């Protein structure tokens, strides 16, 4: 039983809070009128934009001082790498969806149009906002039916790496690829010595696409066969290009079914933030591998003081291979030479496999594969086959760079710094 006094106090407190509860006008699609805020707002684009590797940043329009974003939830065809296109669901034609980038204190308005065959809703993972903007279908809002458009509006009062993803038929819609970054830069930029020069965002994803088919199977819980950074599987991942001496930040987000221990060669880094916010310096400790649990983000930073080509990859080694079956017979160490010819009489073009391991598979990439299927291992480096796939990318640190947007090629090693053969 509330007394009149407590009710007045409550409403006063409510009016002082930064984001104010909006009337649900979402159904009509009308923007709500301006509401007063407690803290001064500043619309700014003065930040180092995040590079969503192989991805895109969502452009915005200004409506007065509100940043207006538009998302369309729809089925998409995503090229995981050259030669393989998957039928997924995503936002604005891609998976993950375009990165929403804003600054702490911004008021954002996001229109979401649903072009999926079923209802959806968008949840803003890790963002502090009025409950009604939380995007949980049935709980905090009605579902966005197919062909409907809803609008979310709230003021950002935090900074860090957050995500957006559906909260409607969640398991299926996320399994089909619906997710994206929501990155909020701090209101006050860091001191120059700590300013981040290169800022990368990588979404970790797992999929099952039957070899020879194209549509993602959302019913697979454990037995995934394709793994991507921002919807791309190696050799389809772009390099992370930085200049020697740059402070580099890598933001990782994970909405898959497994945790992913992401490892960087050549450096020790600190984990500087999670989707809960920045990690205090005293709590940071050096790592070479950061484990990104499901439903979380991790930021790590380092100074790129060692030039070279440094792999960045998930250390669950089967996540760095493309499609492979797990039930095939184990031929390791099984001598098949005499039998190969006999089998070839029955099946022309047959070659025995697996006796000496799987590295040889890359040499067989020219043999006919099922259509729309990536080779298990691929990629060619300056010294030979890379035999990689899936969650694998290369950090390229160079003393001299033409531009961050141009692949600088392979690292030219100073003489005497390459391992050499003695016998």
């Amino acid at each position, binding site marked *: 039983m509330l007394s009149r006094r407590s009710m007045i106090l409550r409403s006063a407190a409510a009016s002082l809070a930064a984001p104010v509860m909006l009337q649900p006008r979402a159904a009509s699609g009308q923007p709500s009128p301006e509401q007063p805020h407690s803290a001064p707002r500043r619309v700014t684009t003065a930040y180092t934009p995040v590079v969503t590797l192989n991805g895109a940043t969502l452009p915005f329009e200004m409506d007065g001082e509100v940043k207006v974003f538009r998302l369309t939830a729809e089925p998409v065809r995503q090229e995981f790498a050259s030669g393989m296109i998957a039928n997924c669901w995503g936002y604005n034609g891609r998976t993950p969806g375009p990165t929403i980038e804003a600054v702490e204190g911004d008021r954002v308005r996001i229109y979401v149009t649903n072009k999926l065959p079923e209802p959806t809703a968008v949840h803003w993972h890790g963002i502090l906002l009025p409950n009604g903007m939380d995007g949980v279908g049935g709980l905090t809002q009605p579902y966005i039916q197919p062909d409907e458009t809803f609008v979310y509006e709230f003021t950002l009062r935090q900074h860090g790496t957050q995500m957006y993803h559906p909260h409607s038929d969640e398991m299926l819609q996320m399994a089909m690829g619906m997710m994206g970054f929501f990155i909020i830069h701090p209101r006050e930029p860091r001191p120059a010595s700590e300013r981040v020069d290169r800022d990368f965002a990588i979404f970790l994803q797992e999929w099952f696409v039957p070899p020879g088919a194209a549509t993602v199977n959302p019913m697979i819980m454990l037995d995934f066969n394709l793994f991507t950074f921002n919807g791309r599987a190696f050799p389809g991942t772009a390099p992370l290009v930085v200049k020697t001496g740059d402070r580099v930040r890598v933001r990782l987000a994970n909405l898959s079914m497994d945790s992913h221990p992401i490892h960087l060669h050549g450096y020790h880094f600190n984990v500087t933030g999670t989707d809960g916010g920045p990690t205090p310096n005293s709590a940071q400790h050096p790592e070479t591998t950061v484990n990104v649990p499901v439903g979380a983000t991790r930021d790590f930073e380092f100074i790129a003081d060692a030039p070279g080509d440094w792999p960045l990859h998930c250390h669950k080694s089967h996540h760095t291979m493309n499609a492979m079956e797990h039930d*095939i017979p184990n031929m390791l160490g099984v001598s098949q030479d005499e039998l190969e010819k*006999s089998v070839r009489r029955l099946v022309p073009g*047959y070659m025995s496999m697996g006796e000496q391991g799987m590295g040889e598979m890359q040499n067989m990439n020219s043999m006919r594969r*099922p259509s729309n299927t990536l080779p298990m291992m691929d990629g060619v480096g300056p010294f030979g086959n890379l035999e990689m796939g899936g969650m694998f990318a290369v950090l390229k640190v160079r003393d001299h760079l033409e531009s961050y947007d141009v692949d600088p090629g392979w690292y030219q090693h100073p003489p005497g710094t390459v391992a050499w053969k003695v016998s």
Partner: protein
Amino acid sequence: MLRLRWMVMAAMLTALTGCRGQQVDDGFADLSADVARRTGRSLQWNRDAEAAAAIEQRVSELLAQPLTAESAVQIALLNNRCLQAAIEELGVARADLIEAGMLQNPQLGVSARFPDTSASTNLEFTITQSFLEFFVVGARKQLSAAQFDHARLRVTKAALDLTWETEAALFAADASQQLLALKQTIAEAAALKRDLAVKQYDAGNISELDAARQRAAADLSRLDVTLAGAELQAQREQLNRLMGLSGAQTSWTLSSAAIPMPVAEPDTDALEHLALMQRIELAIARQELAVVDRTLDLTRKGFVSDLDLGVSTEREPEGFWVTGPVLQIELPIFDHRGVRIERIESQQRQARHMLAALETNALSEVRAASAQLSAARATVEYLRDDVVPLRQRITRLSQEQYNAMLMGVYELLAAREDEIDAQSSLINATREYWVARTSLKQAVGGSLPAGSSAPSPGAPSTVEEPSPVTQPESEHDHHDHGGK
């Protein structure tokens, strides 16, 4: 007086011996022409050393090449001794025909009696000749000619039966041979799976149980090969029997040339008409009916059954000759002829019914064989155009999966085995088609009309070679690790 007696007797003898057996055609030319018209093959009569040598020569020539249905049938028609035995029926029938044209020899009777009261003997000479002979011999000759034709038709039937049986046996042997090859391939695949499993076990990669399971599957396929080999031998021996071959001659091979199915099958109505005209069983039944008709005719016209005329002269013991004509006649007290006519009338109705039944059955057999042929054709087309290509595609797609290490070698070999199973079905179906075609020829009584059929059938189509499943690529030696 004595001179007169002897002159009368001599005159009678002269008149009688004037009717000698005339030259009768042996009927082989007609037989041979009949067989050639219906089967396209020729016949030889092996009745002397020269003919035997010619046959031997021809058979050797034919055996020097791989056998086709045509050459196998030709060898059988030349070399099968049962058929030759049947052809000799013509010789027997010919003799009967000639004999039918001859009159019976007159009877001469001599008796001597010695009376006990005088020293002289009683001599009696009698010459009689059946009188009816003169009137009946013409009719008898006609009957015998009909029976000769009947014999010829029976030999034609024997030749045709041999032709169809040989064709069917050749198709069966060819199919058996192809199936044996396929079963050997399957056994090879099973053996490979077994060997791979053993090697996996040796390397410690699978358990003894898993290895044993693979080996068990291989055992059964070996059995199939053994049985198929015996089956092939049996088929070959049947062909040897039909072709009359033995010793070194049994080492013939079958032609592997594939003969295409005809574009279309003959129209059933045309075939029914053809069957009525040329089916040997019907001709034989018609001939039998003609014989019965003729017999009935003669029996109805016959007025006396037996009449003997002759001369008799006798020397009495007293020393004088008594001479006079002899007449012997059957008294028609009991009406045997009426009974005989009734019997033959029954036989005539019987023959008519048989002919009608045979005609109905023949037409029905044509329709049934025609339907069988259509079904067999549809089966072959379905297997050849749908089932086998799909299985081949499955093997190819499986190999793509195998190449990407998405499928193991056991599954790949299993896909190939399924493909081979489909090819086995096709071989069986193809054999069924050509055998059904032979059955239709049998129902029609000869080769099928030229208009809608292809050149005469040979061996059924061959097994497909395993199709290439990878695009032409440079061979990768999988021991060389590329650019490492």
